[in-house]
C-alpha cells in the first residue's frame, strides 16, 4: 500500500502525466472506466454519422446496386480484426519482455473483441457474397485467411482459458501471439498464392482509391467508429480482468464495499 502512495506522489512530473503511474492495475482501473465512456460516446456519434453517409449520401453502386452498402460494416470489421491482432501481440510481447501485468491484461482483453471483429467480417462477407457471387462462401484467399485469423484468435483465447495460473497464461499466450504475428504474413501470402477470387483492395495507400469519395469517407468514418468501439469494449473488459485478478487486494475490496454502500 505504501508503494502506491509514494507512486501517487509522483503522479505528475513537470506537468506531464506520468505514464508509469497508470501502469498499475489499481490506478488504471478508474482511468479505464472514464476512457471507455468517452470512447463509447465517440463511437456512437461517429457511427451515426457514418451510417448516415452510408445510407443517404453515398451513391448507389453502378454494378452492385444497393447491396454493396454492407461494405460500411464489412471493411471496418475486417480492418479492425487484422489491426487488433497486431495490437494484441504488441501488448503480449511488452508483457513478456518487461513483466508488466497490465500489458498482458490488455492483450487478454483485446482477444475477444478481435475475434468478434473477424467473425463479423466473415458474417457480413457471407451476406454480401450471396447476392454478388451467388454463394455464401468461396474458398478464396482473403476469406480463408480471415477465417484462419479467427482460428488464431480462438487458439489464443483457448490457451489462456486452459491455464489456471494467470501469470503463466499471460506468458504462454504471449509466445503464441508472437509466433502468430510472425506467421500471419506467411499465411496471408501462401493463401493468396493458393487461390484468389476476391475483388482487389479498393483502398490502398499507394494509389488513389477506386471508389467514389463519399463511399470512401463513409467507410473511413465507420472504421473510426469501429476503432472507438473496440477501444471502449477492450477497456471495459480489462476492468473486469483487473478486478478478477486483484480480487484479493485491499483496494478491490474497498471498491466492492463502497459500491455496495452506494447502491
Amino acid at each position, binding site marked *: 500500500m505504501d508503494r502506491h502512495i509514494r507512486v501517487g506522489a509522483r503522479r505528475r512530473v513537470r506537468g506531464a502525466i506520468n505514464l508509469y503511474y497508470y501502469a498499475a492495475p489499481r490506478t488504471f482501473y478508474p482511468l479505464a472506466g472514464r476512457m471507455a465512456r468517452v470512447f463509447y460516446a465517440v463511437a456512437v456519434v461517429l457511427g451515426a454519422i457514418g451510417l448516415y453517409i452510408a445510407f443517404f449520401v453515398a451513391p448507389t453502386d453502378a454494378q452492385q446496386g444497393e447491396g454493396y452498402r454492407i461494405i460500411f460494416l464489412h471493411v471496418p470489421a475486417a480492418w479492425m480484426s487484422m489491426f487488433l491482432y497486431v495490437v494484441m501481440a504488441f501488448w503480449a510481447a511488452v508483457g513478456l519482455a518487461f513483466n508488466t501485468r497490465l500489458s498482458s491484461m490488455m492483450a487478454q482483453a483485446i482477444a475477444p473483441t478481435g475475434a468478434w471483429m473477424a467473425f463479423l467480417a466473415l458474417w457480413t462477407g457471407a451476406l454480401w457474397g450471396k447476392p454478388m457471387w451467388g454463394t455464401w462462401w468461396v474458398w478464396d484467399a482473403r476469406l480463408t485467411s480471415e477465417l*484462419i485469423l479467427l*482460428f488464431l484468435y*480462438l*487458439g489464443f483465447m*483457448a490457451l489462456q482459458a486452459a491455464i489456471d495460473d494467470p501469470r503463466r497464461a499471460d506468458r504462454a499466450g504471449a*509466445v503464441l501471439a508472437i509466433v502468430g504475428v510472425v*506467421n500471419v504474413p506467411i*499465411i496471408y501470402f501462401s493463401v493468396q*498464392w493458393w487461390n484468389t477470387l476476391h475483388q482487389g483492395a479498393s483502398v490502398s495507400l499507394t494509389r488513389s482509391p477506386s471508389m467514389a469519395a463519399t463511399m470512401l469517407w463513409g467507410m473511413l468514418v465507420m472504421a473510426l467508429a469501429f476503432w472507438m468501439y473496440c477501444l471502449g469494449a477492450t477497456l471495459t473488459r480489462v476492468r473486469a480482468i483487473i478486478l478478477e485478478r486483484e480480487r484479493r487486494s485491499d483496494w478491490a475490496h474497498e471498491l466492492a464495499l463502497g459500491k455496495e454502500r452506494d447502491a
Partner: protein
Amino acid sequence: MSASAPLAAFACVLRRDLLLALRRRSDVATTLFFFVIVVTLFPLGVGPEMSLLRTMAPGVLWVAALLASMLALGRLFAGDYADGTLEQLVLAPHPLGLLVGAKIAAHWLVTGLPLVLLAPLLGLAFDMRAEALGTLTLSLLLGTPTLGLIGAIGAALTLGLRGAGLLLSLLVLPLYIPVLIFGAGAVEAVAGGLGPGAHLSVLGALLVLALFFAPWAAALALRISLE
C-alpha cells in the same frame, strides 16, 4: 567447458531420445498406423472413383501426414515432463534451444521420416504417377521437419494442461497451413504439368526459417511451462 560441449550435448540428447524410441517401438508404429488408416478412410468416404482419388491424393496424403505428426507431438515432451528429465535439461549448462532442437530432430527421425517413406506406397494406391510420387516424397521430406518444429512450440506451451491434445490442435493447425499449401501444391503442380521448383523452394525457406526460430521459441515456452 570445451567448445564442442554444446554439440556433444546435442548428440547426447539425440542418442538418448532415439534409444528411448527404439525401446518403445509401438509408439512409432501407432503414428504410422494412424497415417495409414486416415488415408484409407478417404476412398471409403468419397467412393472408389480412380480419377477423383488421383486428383485428391496430394491433399489427402498431406492432410493425413499433418494430422499424424500433430498427434505425435503429445509425446515430444510429455514423458520427460512426467519423470523430471525436462527440468534437468532446463538446468543444464547448455543452451536449451539446442537441446530442444535435438529432441525435435530425434522426434522427426522416429515419427516423420517413416511417414515420408511410407507416403509413396500409399500414393500408389491412389494411382499417382511416378514423378508425382517423387515430388510427394520430396515435399514431405522438406515439410514434415517444419511441422515438427512449429508443433514443438505448441507442445511446449500446452505441457501438463487439461485437454492438452485438443488444445494443441487448435494452436498448431492454423500455423501448419502454409506448409500444407506449398506441400500439396508442389505435388499438384507436377500432376498439372508444371515444375515443382517454386513450391519446393518455399518449403525449403519455411524449413530454414522454422529451424532458426522454432527451437528458441519452444525453449522459451518450456521455461514458461516449467516455472
